[in-house]
């Protein structure tokens, strides 16, 4: 009988070692996942910054191509800032996130715009910028998926809205700003512009209802963000869509739209910061 004690002990230790290794591996896997998720959120915030810069570039170029050469210096400065953001993004780009192909496509889109800027018409510039921003929205979604942010279901934030709905809403407001400002400046709304504005009005209105149904996402901006979006929708409908001729100045409309877009981005920044802090505290 004494001959069985040592082998039994050895076998027990082996079993415990295997269990401990399993636990360690599981813990390491969870930590790697958290780090991946944190990295993903940081990348998404960088991508959102890029998107905002491209939107501003779109607006500046629109003014430039519509006959205001005084904006040329601002356009060049914005291009420099965008290139800096691209460099930072490329440094943080993670092969594991499998977003390299889309990132390359985005860089190609940007180089195409930058090189042909002088030869573009205002509508062509708008379409190309919007296509580039659309790719950035897809990139944000790809990054969120590959970072497995959808597994953060235990946190109280509606995460799909964070990286999908909020940036898309901001872009819809951005397009409404560009098209509406052009209509207000021209003091005429043709059928095509009216169609676009009605469609964008519908999209922004749906996004507003979705935001109002998610108070956890809006957080501290519950009193300001919806009201600013509501104001934009009202101005758009009352002064651009309903009258036979626009009854609002381009400057005032642009200001209202910019405030609405800023409010949406503000919600995004607050929510993503909150989420990142929660993840970092859990990872620790």
């Amino acid at each position, binding site marked *: 009988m004494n001959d069985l004690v040592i082998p*039994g002990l050895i076998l027990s230790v082996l079993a415990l070692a295997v269990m401990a290794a399993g636990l360690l591996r599981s813990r390491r896997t969870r930590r790697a996942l958290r780090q991946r998720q944190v990295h993903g959120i940081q990348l998404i915030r960088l991508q959102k910054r890029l998107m905002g810069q491209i939107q501003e570039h779109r607006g500046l170029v629109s003014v430039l191509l519509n006959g205001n050469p005084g904006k040329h210096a601002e356009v060049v400065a914005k291009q420099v800032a965008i290139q800096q953001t691209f460099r930072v993004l490329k440094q943080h780009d993670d092969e594991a996130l499998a977003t390299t192909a889309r990132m390359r496509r985005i860089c190609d889109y940007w180089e195409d715009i930058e090189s042909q800027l002088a030869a573009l018409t205002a509508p062509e510039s708008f379409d190309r910028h919007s296509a580039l921003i659309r790719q950035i929205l897809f990139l944000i979604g790809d990054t969120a998926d590959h970072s497995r942010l959808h597994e953060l279901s235990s946190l109280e934030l509606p995460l799909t809205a964070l990286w999908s709905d909020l940036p898309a809403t901001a872009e819809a407001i951005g397009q409404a700003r560009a098209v509406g400002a052009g209509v207000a400046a021209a003091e005429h709304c043709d059928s095509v512009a009216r169609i676009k504005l009605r469609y964008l009005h519908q999209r922004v209105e749906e996004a507003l209802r979705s935001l109002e149904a998610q108070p956890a996402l809006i957080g501290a901006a519950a009193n300001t963000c919806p009201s600013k979006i509501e104001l934009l929708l009202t101005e758009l409908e009352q002064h651009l869509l309903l009258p036979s001729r626009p009854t609002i100045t381009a400057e005032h409309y642009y200001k209202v739209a910019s405030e609405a877009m800023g409010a949406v981005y503000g919600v995004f920044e607050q929510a993503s910061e909150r989420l990142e802090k929660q993840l970092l505290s859990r990872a620790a």
Partner: protein
Amino acid sequence: MTAPTRHSLLSGRTGGRLIHLIGITAALAALSHVPSWSSQPSVFNLAGLTLGLFAWGLCLLLARQLTRQQDHLLRGLEQWRQGDHQVRITPDGLAEYTLLTTRLNDHFRENLRRTDTAEQATHEVAHAAGELQGRAGRVADIAREQHASATATAAAIEQMSTSIAEIAQQGSDARERANIALAAADQGTALVGATSAGLEELARSSDQISNTLEQLTQQSRAISQITEVIKGVSEQTNLLALNASIEAARAGVYGRGFAVVADEVRHLSHGVAGSAADIASTLREVSLAIATSVEQTTVLREQARQGVSHAQGANAALEDIQHQTRQTLASVAQIAVATEQQGAASQEIAQHITQVADHARTQSSMADDTAGVAAHLAQLAQRMQATGHHAQP
């Protein structure tokens, strides 16, 4: 269908069952050592039992992991099938499953984006259809208004053509009356000319009469002078007769006959003086009459001259009337020509307006058709929207 690979044997419930079976076999093999323990268990028995149980445990874990991964996959696919296009499958387990899960998630994501893009396009088509419907309706309204305006214009043109014909007829009448007026003006000019000549002749005659009266006046003066002489002679004769009477009276009887003669001479001189006075009175009346005649002749002459002047003025006016009438005739002729041209043009316009009205009617009909097509497009778009909301993969 592809040939099963080495990895596919480990996948699915079949793989899990197989692994479980291996584990059970290992456990049974281990337990088969137990009967031999009744006497004295050896190290090999214990090792075999432990390893068997350990293997069974591992196989159980592996089988459970495979089953769980498969359940995740099946659950995700079922959710996708039921319309949850935002579903994501958690990669957990073997690397092959992780790769499959990642690819499935990528597919779900891209499919969702395509669906969203289609839905957005559908929304925009719906708005475009609505705008098209509104515009088509407006075009139809405008076409109807255009048709009504064209019809009214055609009627107005028709009335204008009728008016133009009446104007042409009145122009022709005016031309005839102008011709008559011109003839009358010519006749009047001739009459005025004759009157003017007569008045000039009258003026000349008045001058002659005036000259004659002037001569009579001078002769009257001469006669008056002679009468004065006669009166003087008569007075002297009367004085002489008186003296003779006185002398005759002085002469007494011898002077009675002389006194009678002297009386007779005095009576004669009184008679001559009276006759001379009558002659003077008559001359004065004649002179007065002559003066009156001269005045009247002067007035007559002046009136004749004024008459000549008026006749000349009337002649000038008649000539002006003739000139204006000729010009009026020329204008009337031009109006007649223009009226004829306008009549032809208005008829042509009326024909064109009628064509426009026909085209407007056709356009209105086509616009109604377009509005119908746009309404149908709007319905199709709404149907697409509804389909997009409930899209099944």
